[in-house]
């Protein structure tokens, strides 16, 4: 349940203000979202991410050197409006053009798309890479229809590192597309989340059940199962993702075990340990993994596994340092 607020209608705004207050060294508030408060080198590509609120660290928590340049922040689970995105992107632009990147949801696509038109019309060269990692949301042959979940992190990280390395907009876009093409996720949910002020959860999963592929806004899953053991859950997630392996995969993968909000750290680590073993048995080497809360859904009970199949350049950009309020790497 979401309990801490004065007026539910002000929740997203007040939370964002508080986030900025707690992270002044990283971010500054602009109308529609946040931008880096640290200097961005002139000519650097601006990686502008965003989406609905309620997914922290996505999206505002991922703004910082080596990651996103700015984040457009909508209302709870709702796309920011085109005008917000436009203003945030303008504030972020350092002369190197803008890469918009966000999860592939119709509302976001429409709003970001409109912002992109406006930015391009003003001569700010703007491209888009939507994140489509969730294998539960469409079959592999319709990969472009898939929605984005925790794979946001791999795509933003690669794009952010490429921008930080001074690469051109073409190159940042190419790498982000490649990272997205090689990222796969699958999630499960055990219980719903409650929007501030709502009297009931957005959805429920029956007690003792698990919903496979349930979306991070409560979009229904693809199947229901009795709650499995941790070992069986690890098996399920790994086998489904490996069955969806991209072309030319190589054998080095980033693995990300992501908690949606109330599956806590010890549980995530326990599962990660089992997943790592299964991946190793499958002949894969796990490179610089992550295990924690990275793309959440308020207090939703659920988790996801993401794999990013690396090649040489992706591995380099994955390993590069990043420093944001919620995600840091290297130094």
């Amino acid at each position, binding site marked *: 349940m979401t309990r801490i607020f004065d007026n539910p209608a002000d929740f997203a705004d007040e939370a964002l203000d508080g986030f900025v207050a707690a992270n002044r060294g990283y971010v500054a508030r602009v109308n529609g979202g946040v931008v880096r408060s640290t200097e961005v080198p002139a000519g650097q590509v601006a990686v502008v991410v965003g989406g609905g609120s309620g997914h922290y660290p996505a999206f505002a928590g991922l703004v910082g050197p080596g990651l996103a340049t700015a984040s457009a922040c909508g209302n709870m689970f709702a796309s920011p409006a085109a005008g917000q995105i436009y203003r945030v992107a303008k504030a972020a632009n350092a002369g190197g053009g803008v890469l918009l990147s966000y999860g592939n949801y119709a509302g976001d696509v*429409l709003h970001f798309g409109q912002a992109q038109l406006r930015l391009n019309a003003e001569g700010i060269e703007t491209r888009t890479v939507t994140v489509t990692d969730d294998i539960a949301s*469409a079959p592999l042959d319709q990969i472009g229809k898939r929605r984005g979940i925790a794979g946001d992190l791999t795509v933003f990280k690669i794009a952010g590192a490429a921008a930080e390395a001074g690469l051109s907009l073409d190159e940042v876009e190419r790498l982000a597309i490649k990272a997205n093409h090689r990222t796969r996720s699958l999630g499960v949910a055990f219980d719903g989340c409650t929007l501030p002020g709502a009297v009931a959860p*957005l959805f429920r999963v029956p007690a003792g059940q698990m919903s496979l592929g349930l979306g991070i806004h409560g979009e229904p899953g693809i199947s229901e199962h009795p709650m499995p053991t941790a070992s069986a859950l690890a098996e399920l997630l790994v086998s489904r993702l490996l069955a969806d392996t991209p072309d030319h995969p190589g054998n080095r993968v980033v693995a990300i075990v992501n908690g949606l909000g109330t599956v806590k750290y010890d549980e995530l680590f326990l599962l990660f340990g089992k997943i790592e073993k299964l991946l190793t048995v499958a002949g894969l080497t796990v490179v610089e993994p992550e295990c924690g809360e990275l793309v959440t859904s308020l207090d939703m009970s659920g988790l996801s596994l993401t794999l990013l199949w690396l090649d040489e350049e992706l591995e380099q950009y994955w390993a590069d340092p990043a420093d944001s309020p919620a995600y840091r790497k290297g130094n």
Partner: protein
Amino acid sequence: MVLDVNWAVRWLTLCAQAMAENRVWLIELDRAIGDSDHGENMDRGFQAVLDKLAEARPETPGAALKLTAMTLMSKVGGAAGPLYGTAFLRASTALGDAAEIDPGRLADALAAARDGIVARGKAESGDKTMVDAWTPAVEAAKAAAADGAGTVLGVLVAAAEAAEAGAVATDPLVARKGRASYLGERSAGHRDPGAASSALILRAAVGAAA
């Protein structure tokens, strides 16, 4: 009955009422095959439209619809926001600064709205979206307007009835656009929330003219 700015304001007011009254129903429809927020989105959006209308006091139907378009686009983060926003914007452009709307122009404005939705959302008929309410509505409106004896009320009634039938006809469809498409076959057997709200909007247009 003339369709002037007073009609337009009544229409938008009735839309807001309909969204408030059907908020929970639209949420339930969206819960089955989407993310449970369509009723919330529409209610919030049209409440904001009412606020803007009270402030801005537009002088033509076209101006009222333009204000509606801008407000929905900036207040509704869901897919429905930009889609309805574009629909109202295109309709407003089709109406120009006419003080009153005749049957032919009314049908044209509805067609422009539908074309705007298709241009933004790229959905085809049968994809189980709001387009499945709008396309039959536009066809019925055109037929009613083409009839020499057609009145604006007749055009509106024809459009509303066709939209309602179109919304009902989304029930068995498998979604190919929007959030419901993630569900594949599991989306069949549920009404599309956007088609349902589209029918409510066109029904409100009748009420404002009656």
